[in-house]
């Protein structure tokens, strides 16, 4: 039986939905994108083009919620549907878009470069617990104008898993789409078996920037899935109450689903976000706060009730080094998200709010994910009767270890961690060098990278990706791309 976590009653979900719908009428949504305003106006919304505010009637939103698919798949590069957005499927991907990496040797945060991202992408490929790649951080060795597409270029050279990504500009989205189409074998193939999903972020409260709105419209028109990242900051840019922050998230997501469906009916879109409480002492937005976890999974509950695939940013920490706080915050929130049945949980590897990525944290988080997945697999009755026959056969003998019954079930009943988790005796631990979690994670990173093998990527495809990336790079003053580590 699978355990389920719920914070909201049906009545409260109804009320949140109704308040969200009412907010889309008054005060409405400010949309800084002309195309979206036209779409809304044509559909019957009351649009003030000067103030760029759209007042959206309930029926338009309700229709959009109906036409948006309740489920879809992301495909790996072999064409297999490996990530299921829908129902209570739970999957994990690294947090996306960090600006720093925690150095593997010094534990200092520094600006990441090409080699770092390649290493990270390889690690994600090697970790079975991590379901999808993400464009995890922005490389500092290329012009910032191509920071988004360069991440995707690197990832596509080394990955087989699908990828969670996003664009920082309107024009770079098109290059990123071209790269994905090149790998998929054309735009049609990409639409049929999407390998990527684009994060699109409304601005709190109730606003859409030109850029992210355009990205969402372009995705919809190419049948490429997009993922709403609504991020109310409770107490700063949103009501301080948990339920109030969820109302804001609901309104923002409903506006996103509406614009998306008006652009292309039936386009896949995810009810997602990265809401957080606002820390009243430090003025920060902690992702490791229990209040943040409660807002995030409550938001997903509303999305589920409306029949949409869901996403949250959890499984992260605000710690600056990989320490006890880092572990407890990441583990607590990943388990909450899994228990809530959120389809995609972004956050693995991420720390210091959402600003830093760490290879070592990623391999630790993989163990957290393994445990979370075991947790929601629940308690199963494997035999009928459960134990009567076996225990009568064994009587008072304690050697269950030597029974085929043990062999048959132990891998399913237990989650078996890697050596990142120490379960040896004190003496064994001493003998292995008294290593801390951080040191064991360092070892595992090295071991996994040693066994990584490059995926089969054709030379002409490699060159095509390079050419697609080089063009905008040259526009922004970079004549040659940094060499790939194997070059």
């Amino acid at each position, binding site marked *: 039986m699978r355990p389920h976590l719920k914070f909201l009653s049906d009545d409260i979900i109804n009320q949140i939905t109704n308040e969200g719908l009412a907010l889309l009428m008054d005060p409405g949504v400010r949309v800084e994108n002309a195309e979206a305003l036209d779409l809304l106006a044509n559909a019957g919304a009351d649009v003030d083009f000067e103030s760029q505010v759209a007042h959206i009637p309930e029926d338009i939103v309700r229709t959009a919620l109906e036409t948006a698919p309740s489920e879809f798949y992301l495909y790996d590069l072999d064409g297999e549907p490996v990530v299921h957005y829908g129902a209570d499927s739970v999957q994990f991907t690294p947090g996306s878009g960090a600006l720093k990496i925690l150095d593997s040797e010094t534990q200092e945060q520094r600006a990441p470069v090409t080699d770092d991202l390649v290493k990270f992408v390889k690690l994600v490929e090697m970790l079975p617990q991590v379901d999808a790649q993400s464009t995890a951080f922005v490389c500092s060795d290329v012009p910032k104008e191509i920071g988004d597409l360069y991440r995707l270029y690197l990832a596509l050279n080394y990955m087989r898993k699908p990828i969670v990504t996003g664009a920082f500009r309107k024009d770079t989205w098109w290059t990123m789409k071209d790269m994905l189409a090149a790998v998929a074998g054309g735009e049609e193939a990409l639409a049929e078996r999407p390998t990527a999903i684009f994060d699109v972020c409304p601005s709190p409260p109730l606003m859409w920037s030109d850029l992210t709105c355009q990205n969402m419209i372009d995705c919809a028109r190419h049948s490429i899935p997009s993922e709403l990242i609504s991020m109310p900051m409770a107490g700063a840019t949103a009501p301080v109450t948990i339920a109030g922050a969820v109302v804001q998230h609901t309104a923002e997501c409903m506006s996103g689903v509406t614009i998306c469906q008006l652009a292309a009916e039936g386009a896949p879109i995810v009810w997602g976000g990265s809401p957080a409480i606002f820390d009243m002492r430090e003025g920060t937005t902690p992702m490791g706060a229990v209040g943040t976890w409660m807002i995030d999974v409550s938001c997903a509950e509303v999305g589920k009730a409306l029949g949409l695939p869901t996403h949250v940013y959890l499984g992260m920490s605000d710690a600056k080094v990989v320490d006890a706080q880092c572990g407890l915050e990441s583990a607590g929130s990943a388990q909450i998200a899994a228990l809530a049945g959120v389809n995609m949980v972004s956050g693995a590897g991420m720390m210091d709010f959402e600003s830093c990525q760490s290879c070592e944290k990623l391999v630790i988080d993989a163990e957290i994910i393994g445990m979370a997945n075991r947790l929601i697999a629940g308690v199963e009755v494997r035999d009928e009767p459960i134990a009567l026959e076996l225990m009568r056969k064994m009587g008072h003998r*304690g050697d269950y*270890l030597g029974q*085929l019954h043990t062999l048959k079930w*132990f891998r399913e009943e237990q989650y078996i961690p890697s050596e990142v988790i120490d379960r*040896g*005796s004190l003496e064994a631990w001493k003998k292995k060098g008294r290593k801390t979690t951080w040191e064991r994670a360092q070892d595992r990173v090295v071991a996994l990278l040693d066994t990584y093998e490059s995926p089969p990527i054709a030379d002409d495809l490699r060159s095509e990706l390079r050419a697609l990336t080089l063009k905008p790079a040259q526009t922004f003053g970079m004549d040659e791309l940094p060499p790939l580590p194997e070059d």
Partner: protein
Amino acid sequence: MPKDILTEITRSLVECEAPDSVAELSQKALEHGEEPLAIINQGLVPGMEIVGEKFQTGEYFLPQMVIAANAMQQAMGLLQPELLARQQNVEVPGVFVIGSVKGDIHEIGKSLVATMMLASGFRVYDLGVDVAPETFVEKVQELDADLLGLSALLTTTMAAQEDVLEALQEAGIRDRVKVMVGGAPVTEEWAESIGADGYAEDVVSAVELAKHLLS
């Protein structure tokens, strides 16, 4: 056929098939005229070696080790009389007596070591739990044992390992047997301080230590 059946025995052992399958295959091999020594050395021993390797690389876990060791033991029970009838002997690396010390009723760790020693070819006598020092001494004398294993799970019972070493000393047979100690609270330093010959932290290193002490 005969060559294949030895490979079959190895495979069955490694794949941890139904409990009787290794013994049944060994019986079949005998009926096909295989020598018991060949069955042991070319069928069972290579199988246990593979299982041990897989355990050390992390592919196998304790259940596979114990199931394979039990299967080997069962097959050996069948082959021993055949060896006797032919007046043959398998080379035994040593005679091993093991037990949990006085006051300690913990069984699992001690039994695992006994099982693995058995599977590694040792002749093993498991005295069980809560074993008095004089019982250890008697058994070592009676069997002229090469090795003695003392297990203790608690810090409170660990001291009883020292009592056994003193009893061996008093009986004047301390020099004739190598003593290995183990258990959760036991450390290398403790082993040294009570004058034991070696300490092992887990089953695999216990077997390695045993072989090392007798080499």
